[in-house]
């Protein structure tokens, strides 16, 4: 282990927890923990992706017809919004690393704004689906389908975008908490672990959307 030589006894840094020897060790541990959590997120979403792939294989025609009900340009718009938010988030991490405290707050707010735009567009899309009866499972009431089992597509559409949306909401909460702490001036080059970790989480949410968009909106 790299920390062998750095046994710091009786430290006073309030951001260093008692069971760590050094700041570096603490930071790396937190980061590893976050990545492990992200791996579980990948597998959690992954189960849905695998289910989607298998059901798509089973009912290709139904899935193809069903996806025409999605609005491709709204999906693309949301992709752009999320990519932008990822950029502002990574810039926020940079601002924290370089102790630019004001910039950090603004960048975090920009990320949150993107998240809200994303949810707004999603709300618009959802209400359109509700209106047309394109709902999951037994609530599916769309008339005039020529191929059966289209409701399965919408089951997955709502489960996947729903779970993703819950993660966006969680992200908004977490970033909001970061904003409050950033306003208090808690983060600087010496301590920015929470910004970094929530940044990782936010990028993962973006990354999942990167796959959701072509799979749901661009099937051929």
């Amino acid at each position, binding site marked *: *282990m790299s920390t062998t030589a750095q046994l710091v006894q009786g430290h006073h840094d309030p951001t260093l927890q*008692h069971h760590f020897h050094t700041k570096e060790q603490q930071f790396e541990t937190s980061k590893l*923990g976050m990545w492990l959590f992200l791996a579980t*997120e990948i597998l959690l979403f*992954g*189960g849905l992706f695998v289910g989607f792939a*298998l059901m798509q294989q089973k009912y290709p025609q139904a899935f193809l017809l069903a996806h025409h009900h999605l609005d491709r340009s709204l999906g693309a718009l949301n992709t752009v919004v999320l990519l932008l938010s990822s950029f502002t988030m990574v810039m926020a991490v940079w601002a924290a690393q370089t102790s630019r405290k004001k910039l950090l707050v603004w960048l975090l707010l920009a990320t949150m704004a993107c998240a809200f735009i994303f949810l707004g567009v999603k709300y618009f899309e959802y209400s359109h689906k509700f209106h047309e009866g394109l709902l*999951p499972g037994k609530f599916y009431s769309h008339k005039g389908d020529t191929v*059966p*089992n289209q409701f399965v597509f919408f089951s997955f559409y709502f489960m996947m975008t729903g779970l993703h949306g819950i993660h966006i909401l969680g992200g908004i909460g977490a970033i909001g908490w970061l904003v409050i702490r950033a306003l208090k001036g808690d983060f600087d080059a010496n301590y920015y672990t929470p910004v970094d970790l929530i940044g990782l989480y936010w990028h993962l949410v973006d990354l999942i959307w990167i796959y959701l968009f072509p799979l749901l909106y661009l099937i051929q």
Partner: protein
Amino acid sequence: MAAVAHVPAQAHAQTNYLNAQKGVWSWMTTVDHKRIGIMYLSLISTSFFLGGIFALLIRLSLLNPKHMVFGKVIFDAETYNRIFTLHGVVMVFLFIIPSIPAALGNFVLPLMLGAKDVAFPRLNLLSLYIYFVGAVFGIAAMVTGGVDTGWTFYTPYSTTTNSQVTLMTMAAFILGFSSIFTGLNFIATIHKLRAPGMGWFQMPLFCWGIYATAIIQVLATPVLGITLVLLMLERSFQIGIFDPRIGGDPVLFQHFFWFYSHPAVYIMILPGMAIISEIIPTFSQKTIFGYRSIAFSSVAIALVGFLVWGHHMFVSGQSPLASVIFSFLTFLVAIPSGIKIFNWLATMWRGNIKLDAPMLYAISFLLLFSIGGLTGIFLGALSVDIHLTDTYFVVAHFHYVMMGGTVIAFIAGLHYWWPKMTGRMYSEKIARVACALTFIGFNVTFMSQFLLGSRGMPRRYYNYLDQFQPLHAFSTYGSWILGAGLGLTAICLLSSLRKAPDAPRNPWGGRTLEWTTQSPPIEHNFDVDPVLTHGPYDYRKPLPVEVEA
């Protein structure tokens, strides 16, 4: 093992993690891994007791095919189905998965690594609370009518029955997060919090076992989570993935379920093996044979264990090709387990063996787990599995692995670390009697079930043909002996709490770090942060006298 400069003599009025802070609130808000481990221990022991009651009821009901006890029919079929389901659910999700990692692992792992705590102490407490919430959901499902699907929740029965499946899957879903957070915490702890001087191969083998377990907990449990969500949604919204009436594929559920639940078998057994790898060198006073192959075999089992889930599905209607592949990989995963057994035997060879209670349990483990593993060969072999699967042979096989393996190892570890955890020595005499009773009772209960199964008695049966009655009765008598053995174990351990602390730092002469601190340990584990100078099982020199005291 560790170069601890001076070890002060044990004084009785010492402060330790148990008495450093007082009151219920200090326990509920603690982030001390030792206290969290103790709280886990009491919760899972309660679960084990509950699951054990269900088990005894199952056996009592099967005493004769008419379910007559004192001239009265004790259960109808529906009650019986609920009881065996609850036995499975409680034992799997509430007891055996968290048993060794969350209870003993939480307590011992940081001590063995020479760390002050786990990597994320607050997350550790959170996972305990999540476990508690999950347990509350489980109990709610039980008192509002129970579940009658079997612990495997196979669709489409689980999507159509009107018992409390949704509530119970919710419980399992929540418990899954507790397991994930525990695993995540341990991986980070092992990677980053080892004491200075402790490289990967100076780490005690218990830590390797917990590490391998944690990999599975992190990588497999989320898939169970999403599978259970899909099951709940299928039940309430008919989303069309598992239910064939609306176009779903019920066998797909089995794939998703076993993708978690087969590796989960290794979540259960790997920590058990890890405990045995500690106890055998300590009580043989001899260094472990083949350290690296034991360590690597743990990780190999964890990874290859992900590739074999389809051996639960040979007759499920999966494709024959898939069955052949899964059978092949199943035989591969048998090899690392075999390696471990031979390595343990080689460790005992030319050792200096003392048969205290932990070692007696470890030897019980060795014998019972061998039977469990060897009967697994029958079930991995395709043509024989067709006859044996879903019979009592399978029931006997997995009880030999889960109970004869994991539970016996858990009890072994509990006896091994009990002095460290509580500061008390239990009665060695009672412990040995309890061990013998448990061993005999276990074999009487389950050996007969191998015969029942190979003769064609299917599992999960309320009624059975008269020809099976003698063996069923035999098994039931065994369950009483087993129950008595486990009860005596509980009495033996709990009664030791009533006397004054008397455990020395190192009652067994172990060489790992947890024996260098006082019993019970102080709040932050070590007086001086330990620095390692050599490996974990070095018995070339006798123990320093003051440590033995």
